[in-house]
């Protein structure tokens, strides 16, 4: 048995160093403030904040969420306070902690993506960028960033030029070939890919005959999608050389280890934060125990260690 003391949880995402592989998933952790009551943010591998755009966005009308079997649909519509407000009002809070801040962002055009990346790049206290090219709440042809490899290549390589921060590309699972999308991001200069974003879904109230979400469709997350997410992480791990960040229905250390074995260098907890705000901490401790029990010294040994 390896004592807990000698266990090495450190992982690297490009040039970014994390003290452990457990991050938060964008859009499920706000800008960190609310959860600081429940967990020690200093202990997190990284904080990934709610997706930001150049201008504040009001998002979709309610109802925005609905529960589904072992999952939930959301159609928040990327409501956010805008990059400027984030930098001025929210980043100072996050800077207090000894934990990397990863900013998830998006744009309505390549130009907006590039501009956003540029502004974020020069703000102090941001350690990495996560480009959301995958939100399924479509507006005016918007979803093509994440589903058409040509467009993906274009937007990622342009953003690459605009920032020297670690650049993570967040992939959509709503594609035929996830490996190809990961490869495209890698070729365009991404330092890592993260997946999965939500699967597009829909639920209908049979009494009113109306969609349960005002936006009609929404994104499916939670344990229901986990098998799909694990498979996609495994496919990406086999296809690209850059690190893969896995997420999709992670609620426990077991779940997290499943993703790591499938090929994830780090994992993110999304819906799990809602079910229990301490989920990230429990996972971290659970991974440590698992490693101690199994004599594993470095969590890096587990990445992709599934025996197929």
């Amino acid at each position: 048995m390896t004592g807990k003391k000698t266990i090495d949880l450190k992982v690297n995402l490009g040039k970014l160093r994390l003290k452990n592989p457990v991050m938060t998933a964008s859009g499920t952790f706000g800008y960190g403030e609310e959860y600081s009551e429940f967990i020690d943010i200093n202990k997190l591998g990284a904080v990934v904040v709610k997706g930001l755009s150049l201008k504040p966005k009001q998002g979709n009308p309610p109802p925005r969420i609905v529960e589904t079997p072992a999952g939930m649909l959301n159609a928040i519509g990327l409501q956010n306070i805008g990059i400027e407000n984030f930098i001025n009002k929210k980043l100072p809070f996050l800077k207090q902690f000894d934990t990397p801040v990863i900013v998830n962002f998006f744009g309505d055009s390549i130009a907006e993506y590039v501009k956003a990346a540029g502004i974020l790049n020069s703000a102090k206290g941001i350690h990495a960028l996560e480009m959301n090219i995958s939100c399924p709440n479509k507006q005016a042809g918007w979803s093509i960033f994440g589903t058409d490899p040509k467009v993906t290549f274009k937007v990622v390589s342009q953003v690459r030029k605009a920032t020297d921060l670690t650049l993570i590309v967040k992939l959509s699972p709503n594609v035929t070939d996830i490996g190809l999308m990961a490869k495209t991001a890698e070729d365009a200069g991404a330092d890592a890919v993260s997946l999965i974003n939500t699967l597009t879904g829909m639920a209908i109230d049979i009494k009113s005959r109306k969609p349960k979400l005002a936006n009609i469709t929404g994104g499916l997350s939670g344990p229901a999608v986990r098998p799909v997410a694990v498979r996609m992480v495994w496919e990406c791990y086999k296809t690209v050389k850059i690190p893969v960040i896995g997420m999709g229905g992670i609620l426990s250390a077991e779940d997290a280890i499943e993703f790591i074995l499938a090929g994830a260098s780090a994992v993110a907890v999304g819906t799990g934060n809602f079910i229990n705000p301490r989920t990230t901490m429990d996972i971290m401790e659970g991974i440590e125990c698992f490693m101690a029990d199994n004599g594993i010294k470095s969590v890096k040994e587990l990445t992709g260690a599934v025996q197929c």
Partner: protein
Amino acid sequence: MDRLLKASVIENRQLINNHYLLTLQPLKKIRKPGPGRFFMLTVDDGLDPLLKRPFSIHRWTGGNFQILYRVAGKGTHLLSKKKQGDTIEAIGPLGNGFNVGKTQNNIILVAGGIGIAPVFALAETISKRKPLLFYGTRTKKEALCIDNLKSLGIKPVMSTDDGTLGTKGNIINVMKKHLTRSTLSTDCVIYACGPGPMLRSLSEFTKKHGLKAYAALEQNMACGLGTCLGCVVNTVNGYKRVCKEGPVFPIDEIIW
């Protein structure tokens, strides 16, 4: 960490049909929360239902708190199966409750259906100021807390959909008639909780008469903490989170 807690089921009493009164003992000490605030409760340990469910604080009795609830679907059905000694995970108290000015008198309370749960909590807090309570239910049986209200010295003006208790019909209409008959003073403040249509018609009434009113709203919730942005309502100042800025809002802010 204070607001993440486990609570032990002391009693889960069926009051009538699908209405239950759940008494919980927090496994650590928590301070008495104000009326209108709420808890997110785990209804089951499994993955379906997945999310916690929000419930208003109904009563606070010597360190225990009570939830008055109606079985609305799968989650509340499972909650109704909890037995004495079972443990429930809770987050709370959450949100902004009813905030009654210390010197405010002339208080009018309006409850529709299970909306009595938080309205009773408020009534208990300010009972000495002799609030006027309008309370509408579907039928006589579903008129809850009547005895407890009596102990507080409050005799609600009732209405029921089927006329089995009080006036037949909708409580806002009853309130309108009642308040027009008596002198409708503009320094009164209304606090309400109930179904959407009730609150909407209340809001039309209060706008018309320039009255101050506050309503506790409901919305599907995932986190209860303000992070998921799932529970917004549309207000004159943009979308606001029911779990964080609410659940109690000035009624004239809400865009129905």
